[in-house]
């Protein structure tokens, strides 16, 4: 069977799902269920003392989903490492989606600090899934220090622009020895399918589901699109042709052939 394997663990779904921006925990839970995803990301934040909310984790069945905490908010390696350790202390498996984003406007990842944090976290036994710009040489460095996947962005987070970094991602995939997960910017199922057709091992989606008119239907749409893209990759896509090629026969017309 065609499974996604990350750090020795198998997953049937190739769609990772974020839990941010939903209007309620119930909506979040219904959406991740509809997506078919098995890996769900969460963020770590200070508890709101005195404002007891419904805890997110009450809505995520951890026997079904791998909880993947991220280090969102970290502006450098030190902050990211601190968040990763806290996530582990809070009872998570030592999986961490490593995000280091010093820039508050475009939230783009820092290649230098990400590599630095990855090296530390791998040594501490974490399964590290770093979020990166689509830089093939950085992806290699990260693989050399032992990350479990690389997660290049398709476009800046939340922009819905799709696979704007397509050429660089194709090179990352070609050279990768770990799964490549396209993260950020995928705004429509067709974008997710395109990434999978290109040979990505998985994709990660949050915003496009959370802002949809119908979040569950959109999640199911992404689920199907990821499967479609994966199957097309396995089935072998045809090449682009410059000139038309008829699909109906070019002989046997109702006229004398020349």
């Amino acid at each position: 069977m065609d499974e996604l394997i990350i750090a020795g663990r198998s997953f049937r779904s190739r769609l990772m799902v974020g839990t941010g921006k939903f209007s309620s925990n119930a909506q979040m839970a219904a959406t991740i269920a509809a997506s078919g995803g098995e890996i769900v990301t969460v963020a770590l934040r200070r508890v709101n003392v005195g404002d007891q909310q419904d805890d997110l984790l009450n809505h995520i069945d951890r026997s079904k989903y791998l909880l993947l905490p991220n280090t969102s908010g970290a502006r450098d390696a030190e902050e990211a490492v601190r968040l990763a350790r806290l996530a582990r202390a809070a009872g998570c498996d030592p999986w961490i989606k490593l995000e280091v984003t010093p820039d508050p406007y475009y939230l783009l990842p820092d290649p230098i600090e990400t590599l630095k944090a990855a090296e530390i976290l791998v040594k501490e036994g974490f399964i590290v899934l770093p979020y990166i710009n689509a830089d093939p040489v950085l992806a290699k460095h990260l693989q050399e220090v032992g990350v479990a996947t690389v997660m290049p962005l398709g476009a800046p987070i939340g922009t819905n622009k799709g696979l704007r970094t397509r050429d660089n991602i194709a090179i990352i995939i070609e050279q990768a020895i770990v799964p490549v997960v396209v993260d950020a910017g995928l705004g429509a199922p067709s974008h997710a399918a395109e990434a999978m057709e290109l040979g990505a091992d998985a994709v990660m989606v949050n915003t496009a589901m959370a802002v949809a008119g119908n979040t569950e239907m959109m999640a199911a749409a992404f689920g199907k699109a990821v499967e479609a893209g994966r199957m097309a990759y396995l089935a072998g896509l045809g090449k682009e042709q410059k000139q038309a090629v008829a699909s109906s026969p070019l002989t046997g017309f109702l006229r004398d052939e020349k």
Partner: protein
Amino acid sequence: MQIIVNSKPIEVAVNCTISALVEQLNLDIKRIAIEYNREILSPEQFHTTIMNDNDCIEIVNFVGGG
């Protein structure tokens, strides 16, 4: 005595433990992680850690994120 929790001052009893703080704040111990003066504590340490005046505590939990 006064300690600092998530950058805000909070009054607790003298010799208050982390566990007692968690109880006082009405938090679910299984859903949080705690830094005590920048050191991460394991849950087992919550009972044995007695706070002093002006200690800095960070308490975090999981929220939705991408």
